[in-house]
């Protein structure tokens, strides 16, 4: 069986996910056993016309991004959003909170309907995304899990339970117990609760679980000491991109 052709592309992001791929060190050569990397700007010059699997890092934030992601989608059999910027808009989407109506018009003119929320939007707002790997930075175990599934030709398991679950399985002391506020209750798990396990609150970097009740979560944050403003800011740190706005 021919090895799948894999390509990596990056859009607006900090490159941390790319770096994390190189941080696979112990597994990097094993990963390369299974695939042919045909495009990976961080590491090589080569280019290819089509890809079996395209990994996309970064948010979409300019009209050129849109054009380019459409082009990649056309040439990719499977397209995967890698990391928070690509999958949920991520930290970039914080700028969406700024008043930018005029900027939108100026930047996109009549095409501004492509960007109802503003520059920083997830890949799935523009093209069909087959799978998403969450996290800022993306979690290596999850990357490997998705990677293995794809090579085996099966759908990767997609976590829809919150970080709390992983904390409880690890018997971590709840950070609320320590007087901190944490977005673990509504943030998609899959990171093995890495931040709470190291004593730091969950920032919500992996996006919210399906059915997440933001209002109830805001109440919880306020119950534990945040003001309304602080609570909503905390919730929006990585999750300012609101998908329902895209519907219009």
């Amino acid at each position, binding site marked *: 069986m021919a090895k799948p052709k894999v390509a990596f592309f990056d859009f607006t992001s900090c490159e941390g996910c790319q770096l994390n791929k190189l941080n696979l060190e112990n597994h990097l050569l094993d990963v390369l056993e299974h695939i042919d990397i045909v495009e990976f700007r961080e590491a090589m010059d080569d280019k290819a016309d089509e890809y079996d699997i395209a990994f996309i890092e970064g948010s979409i934030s300019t009209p050129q991004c849109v054009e380019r992601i459409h082009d990649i989608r056309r040439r990719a059999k499977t397209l995967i959003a890698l990391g928070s910027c690509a999958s949920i808009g991520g930290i970039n989407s914080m700028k969406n909170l700024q008043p930018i109506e005029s900027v939108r018009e100026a930047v996109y003119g009549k095409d501004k309907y492509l960007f109802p929320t503003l520059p920083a939007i997830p890949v799935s707002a523009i093209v069909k995304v087959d799978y998403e790997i969450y996290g800022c930075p993306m979690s290596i175990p999850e990357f490997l899990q998705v990677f293995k599934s794809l090579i085996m030709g*099966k759908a990767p398991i997609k976590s829809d339970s919150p970080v709390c679950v992983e904390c409880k399985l690890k018997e971590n002391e709840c950070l609320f117990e320590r007087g901190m506020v944490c977005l673990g209750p509504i943030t998609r798990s899959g990171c093995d609760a890495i931040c709470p396990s190291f004593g730091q609150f969950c920032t919500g970097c992996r996006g919210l679980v399906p059915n997440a009740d933001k209002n109830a979560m805001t109440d919880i944050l306020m119950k534990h000491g945040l003001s309304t403003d602080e609570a909503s800011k905390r919730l929006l740190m990585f999750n300012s991109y609101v998908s329902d706005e895209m519907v219009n």
Partner: protein
Amino acid sequence: MVDTTLVRKAMSELAYQDQNPMELYYPEIAEITKVNQFTELEKWYEITLPNGRDLGHQPGQFVQVSLFGVGEAPISITSSPTKKSAFELCVRNVGMLTDKLHLLDVGSNLGIRGPFGKGFNIDAFRGKDVLIVGGGIGIVPLRSLINYIIDNRQEFGRLIICYGAKSPKELLFADELKLWESDPEIEYHVTVDNIIPEWKGHVGVITTLFPNIELDLENTIAAVVGPPIMYKFVLMALKTKQLPDENIYLSLERRMKCGVGKCGHCQINQSYVCQEGPVYHYPDIKNLPEAI
């Protein structure tokens, strides 16, 4: 085999006990001996256990099919218990396991645990007219019952089959359907939901078949299997026909991980579908608010 004497000793100290502890989660490695792609989504398999051992199931029971590296899923047995030395599954590609299962061909191995759960209570059907109501892939477990009846035809009264699918393309077991249709001892009714030019048969949801069917109410037992949405309407229609609730059996689908009453996923109120179902006697569940 694990030596269970120690555990039995421990069990005697436990507050509750009834029988020997079992290795519940280890599958038997079986082989796919025949394959038939029915439709784009449905594929049929004949599975042979080691040494052609008989599975020993009842119509309506299921097995846990496992593929190493992918996982396990409950799948209804579609062959009749009268078929020995191999059994059959018909699988719709809707999930991770089935997706991968569809790539397998004759000679491939898969893991089997089971049969699990309760099937159709054949004794209740014996000597009675049998009304089969199957929607979509609901026909898969029903086929096991139908073929059992066909193979023991003299033990049963009328055999009335109502089969509904979204479109003619989605009708399963096409060859057998022709046999059922032409069999003078079977009253076969089929319908599709959508109007398709080349389809000359009945169009409409499955309950639209009922008005044309005369039932001997006291003497008819119904077996109903279909998607969750179908039950409400079928049960309502059967009520309109005044078929007593005691005469209805139906099979429910729930998420399952273990098949042995432990993992908790399949619970409908207090009932574990993998233990007391998937086939239920309707009076047993009609008061369970989570059932239908």
